[in-house]
């Protein structure tokens, strides 16, 4: 699925080259086309570290900015039928054909809408490849990557704030995991939480996943496999409810817990916890 962006651009005016932005996370490049220069600038700022000039894109979206009148806090709805994906929230509507890679987004001129569309699209692209987006912080230390998973308030952002200068942050909120042969690799993402800054666009082999829990001491303990599976599944971002997708997510999670150690991390909010990580 190459050159989704360039093919379309050829039909456009001479300004076409300036009306698209390609974001690349984990080697999966998505082309975003929009005619509004201000919004294009917003994309360039928000995804600056993840901009790509590749023509080898896996998806391409035409963005139409509109005044959306629905409730922006409406729950996200995602529906898949065959290769067609439809997603909707109060501040956007989007459809995407996974087979052709083409899609359209009608959205409010807000970064949150495009961020949500990208999360859904990446979650599906990753599950197709045996990986997933996971609600976790992630970081690289000693050339190995670690995930710190848990719901809001469990300490993901805190772990990032406690990290020393030798630690490279991949995300404080949404991590990107792909199989890499017989192992897994974690990639930096532009998706962030309370830390309010994107991760670094780098990657490393994934060494362990920690399930976070606040406690009066720092301690790492093993988890039995069924607990590990439940913990990982609870944190994987997936939006499609169709059996085919559920099957893919479940298969991906089961393979993941067999290969990557999943451990419980109880921690105090102090930097000492990082000594137990690597």
């Amino acid at each position, binding site marked *: 699925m190459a050159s989704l962006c360039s093919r379309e651009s050829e039909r456009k005016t001479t300004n076409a080259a300036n009306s698209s932005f390609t974001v690349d996370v984990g080697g999966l490049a998505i082309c975003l086309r929009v005619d509004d220069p201000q919004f294009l600038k917003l994309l360039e700022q928000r995804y600056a570290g993840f901009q790509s000039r590749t023509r080898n894109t896996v998806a391409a979206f035409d963005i139409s900015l509109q005044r959306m009148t629905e409730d922006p806090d409406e729950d996200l709805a995602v529906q898949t039928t065959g290769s067609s994906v439809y997603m909707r929230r109060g501040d956007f509507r989007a459809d995407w054909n996974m087979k052709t890679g083409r899609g359209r987004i009608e959205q409010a001129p807000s970064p949150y809408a495009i961020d949500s569309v990208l999360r859904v699209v990446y979650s599906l692209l990753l599950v197709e490849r045996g990986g997933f987006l996971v609600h976790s912080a992630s970081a690289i230390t000693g050339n190995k990557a670690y995930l710190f998973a848990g719901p809001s308030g469990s300490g993901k952002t805190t772990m990032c704030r406690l990290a020393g200068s030798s630690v490279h942050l991949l995300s404080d909120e949404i991590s990107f995991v792909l199989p890499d042969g*017989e192992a897994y690799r974690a990639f930096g993402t532009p998706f962030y939480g309370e830390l309010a800054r994107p991760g670094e666009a780098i990657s490393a082999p994934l060494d362990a996943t920690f399930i976070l829990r606040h406690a009066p001491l720092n301690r790492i303990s093993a988890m039995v*496999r*069924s607990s590990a*599976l*439940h913990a990982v*599944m*609870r944190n994987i971002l*997936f939006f499609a*409810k*169709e*059996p085919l997708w*559920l*099957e893919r*997510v*479940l*298969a991906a999670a*089961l*393979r993941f817990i*067999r290969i990557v150690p999943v451990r419980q991390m109880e921690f105090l909010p102090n930097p000492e916890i990082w000594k137990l990580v690597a």
Partner: protein
Amino acid sequence: MRSLYVGRSEAVAARMMGGEIVVISPEDSSLFTLNAVASCIWNSADGDSTLEQIVRNQVCAEFEVGFDAALEDAAAFVREGSQHGILQVSEQPLPRNPQVVLPTPETKL
């Protein structure tokens, strides 16, 4: 419950993990790990068999457990499973669900 037919929902995904079956519900994305007895019931819930038949012919044959106690536990499992949309119960036989529980790739990726 004992004379009701029991079938697996077609909307779920299920996989073997060791000797247990894990099932994910499409309704709320809940994940269920079925123990050996529940896995036996799950595998036997073909829509053609009543819970009573499943317990008598499968559970009691495979595990050292009395019929009445097994039926009580099985009824509780089926009740919970149907509430979460992973099992279906009906007074009439249900359409056969051809879904096969795939093994987790334990030995081969």
